[in-house]
């Protein structure tokens, strides 16, 4: 019997939140009833009625008895008011007072415990979110902070909820140590599994306006599987309203191979960013155009510019070339239209840098690079009515033939394959890393299909512990040097190794007595490490966490940018190039940006800005601005990749 009662107590206390309160109510009622039996022990006798705390104002019946009994439970001080009453009455008064203390104590205990539990829920991030239209970050890794920073820069006013399996204290610490800018955001870190439906409902994923899926650092190699499962859930009817009217979603996938499955899981409705693919492509672009990283950061990460699709009236018959300098404060990058084929869903087609003689129609919209929140200032259309053949010019296209890669990481094979794709002729890649033999076997096994015929790939043993070996590799003889973030040895920070390699290269460069040293492209994991690279031969720093976060934060807001991002990095498509400015304008004399823009258009290129010794990187300068350029200045253009 006792065991059964005990079991029911356990059962109800674990399944019901109100059970403890009902238990107290029941106990209190029982005690009151027991106390009321004092009536039969002379509660309203002539002797008792003289006591201060006993009153028969309602006739000395049930109600007076009930009142007396209740009073002792709620007010222990009432015991003393029974002085002079019979012993039986005193006994019941004492019993009720003691039980009252116990019941009140238990009640206070339950209330305090409930408050503590609610606070603990909030602290551990296991509360329930009651937001609408919030940003939701699912998963947590190094990129989380950069994404939050960019959202703050872009002026996001909605609350940001983070759901992750990572220890919530770690997330809080990351946020606390993050930039001050984060204080502009209202952040709600929550702990839980991102691939469980109830957890997604708990953070109101169905009511979120934007969802960014990050690879869970805690899940390790299985992080892509978690992301894919979550994508499947988020694309189900539970989260997507009729007509796909659900939250905007962008997801990070670590391994390029998993991006295809992720695309299927998202029903190709949402942008998927493959981090390994993106980093390797960006590094190769930096090798092709030293200084690319700075341009890329200014363009996409400064928070100053946005790329938007604009509808302009009366475009029918206008040549794309005519739009080159149509806006004083915006650069027209391309055209976009809705492609509607019979029996298929409408699809948005976006094309960057179309030919200048492309004649627009009324259903064309234009893709414009403009300042954030600055309305476009239209200027009169130029009057060139037909496409003229561009004059012949001598240009040096990037053609990287001999590459040195220092250190090893999982992206190395993709970098090599990407180099091969861009190579116009034979290319030789030397990888210098620790444990070269097994690294080579791994790369050849995993990327055999990506390594093309005109590529020579060789591995040589090199470890920081034997720094003298670097001289023997003769780094100065290469066209470009890559340093990848080496995360193989977890005992040494990858950025520290990169910086040490840069210092070694700096020493070798100094020994070269001012002879040309190849550009050095390094992958860093933390943007603060860039400061430590000053004075080294570093040409471009790819802060991988930073550029990926930027892309994710922008894609979740403007999914159409996915096509543009892919295009800008893919071999054989449109790219951001840096060209000697003397190919476009005369040096040493004032020229307008509008003039340079028209000049670039004659080569089927779109001028995005310039990089000068005087001003640094300038993106989207006003067309009416006058500049005087020097020999080493470069024009930043959007252009078709051409391999010569």
């Amino acid at each position, binding site marked *: 019997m006792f065991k059964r009662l005990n079991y029911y107590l356990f059962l109800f206390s674990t399944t019901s939140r109100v059970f403890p309160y009902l238990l107290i109510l029941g106990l209190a009622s029982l005690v009151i009833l027991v106390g009321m039996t004092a009536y039969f022990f002379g509660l309203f006798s002539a002797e008792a009625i003289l006591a201060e705390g006993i009153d028969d104002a309602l006739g000395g019946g049930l109600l007076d008895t009930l009142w007396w009994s209740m009073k002792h439970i709620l007010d222990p001080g009432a015991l003393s008011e029974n002085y002079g009453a019979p012993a039986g009455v005193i006994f019941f008064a004492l019993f009720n007072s003691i039980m009252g203390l116990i019941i009140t104590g238990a009640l206070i205990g339950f209330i305090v415990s409930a408050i503590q539990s609610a606070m603990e829920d909030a602290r551990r991030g296991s509360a329930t979110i009651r937001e609408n239209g919030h940003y939701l970050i699912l998963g947590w890794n190094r990129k989380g902070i950069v994404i939050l920073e960019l959202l703050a820069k872009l002026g996001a006013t909605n609350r940001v909820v983070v759901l992750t399996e990572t220890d919530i204290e770690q997330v809080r610490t990351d946020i606390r140590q993050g930039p001050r800018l984060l204080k502009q955001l209202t952040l709600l870190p929550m702990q839980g599994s991102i691939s469980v439906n109830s957890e997604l409902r708990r953070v109101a994923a169905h009511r979120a306006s934007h969802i960014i899926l990050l690879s869970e650092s805690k899940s390790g190699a299985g992080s892509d599987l978690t992301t894919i499962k979550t994508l499947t859930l988020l694309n189900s009817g539970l989260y997507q309203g009729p007509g796909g009217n659900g939250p905007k979603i962008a997801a990070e996938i670590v391994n390029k191979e998993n991006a295809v499955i992720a695309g299927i899981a998202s029903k190709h409705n949402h942008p998927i960013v493959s981090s390994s693919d993106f980093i390797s492509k960006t590094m190769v672009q930096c090798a092709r155009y030293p200084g690319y990283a700075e341009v890329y950061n200014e363009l996409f990460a400064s928070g100053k510019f946005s790329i938007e699709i604009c509808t302009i009236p009366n475009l029918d018959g206008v040549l794309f070339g005519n739009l080159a300098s149509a806006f004083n404060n915006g650069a027209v990058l391309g055209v976009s*239209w809705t492609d509607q084929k019979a029996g298929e869903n409408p699809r948005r087609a*976006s094309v960057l840098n179309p*030919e200048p003689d492309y004649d627009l129609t009324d259903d064309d919209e234009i893709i414009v690079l403009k300042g954030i929140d600055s309305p476009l200032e239209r200027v009169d259309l130029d009057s060139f009515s037909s496409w003229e053949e561009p004059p012949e010019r001598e240009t040096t296209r990037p053609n990287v033939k001999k590459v040195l890669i220092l250190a090893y990481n999982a992206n190395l094979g993709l970098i090599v394959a990407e180099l091969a794709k861009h190579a116009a002729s034979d290319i030789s890649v030397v990888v210098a890393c620790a444990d070269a033999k097994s690294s080579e076997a791994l790369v050849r096994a995993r990327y055999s299909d990506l390594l093309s015929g005109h590529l020579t790939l060789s591995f040589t043993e090199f470890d920081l512990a034997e720094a003298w070996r670097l001289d023997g590799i003769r780094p100065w003889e290469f066209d470009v040097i890559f340093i990848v973030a080496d995360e193989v040895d977890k005992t040494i920070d990858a950025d520290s190794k990169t910086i040490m390699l840069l210092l070694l290269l700096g020493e070798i460069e100094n020994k070269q007595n001012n002879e040309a040293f190849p550009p050095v492209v390094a992958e860093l994991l933390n943007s603060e490490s860039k400061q430590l690279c000053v004075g080294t031969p570093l040409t471009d720093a790819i802060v991988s966490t930073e550029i990926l976060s930027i892309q994710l934060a922008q894609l979740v807001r403007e999914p159409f940018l996915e*096509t543009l991002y892919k*295009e800008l990095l893919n071999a054989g498509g449109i790219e951001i190039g840096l060209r000697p400015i003397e190919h476009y304008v005369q040096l040493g004399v004032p020229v307008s940006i509008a003039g340079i823009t028209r000049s670039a258009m004659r080569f089927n290129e779109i001028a995005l800005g310039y990089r000068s010794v005087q001003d640094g990187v300038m993106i989207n300068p006003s067309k009416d601005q006058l500049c005087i350029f020097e020999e080493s200045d470069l024009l930043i253009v959007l252009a*078709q990749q051409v391999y010569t």
Partner: protein
Amino acid sequence: MGKKILIVEDNEMNRDMLSRRLVRKGYEIVIAVDGAAGLEMMKSERPDLVLMDMGLPVMDGWAATANAKADETLKMIPIIALTAHALEADRVRALEAGADDFETKPINLAGLLEKMTVLLPA
């Protein structure tokens, strides 16, 4: 109905722009995104002309062109090679693979249309 053109191109933007412009010129367009699919579509769609990108996944444009020209049923379909590789050697390589003509990117539509007119059957 205009002449049927098969565009074999993996780059979405190039595909979209070229097909949009050719549709406006009255051509019927069919699309393949890699060399192997291009070969299959040459058999199933019987296009009047093929615009073949050279840097393609699965099977590159050179191999697809060579295979098409080695196939008795396909060799009469004219192929214009499209490539971002602008060296004379690239032109020679495409022609050696069996391409009937060659156009470098960025594509000059007027020039391409002229080449297409010459190669398309009357």
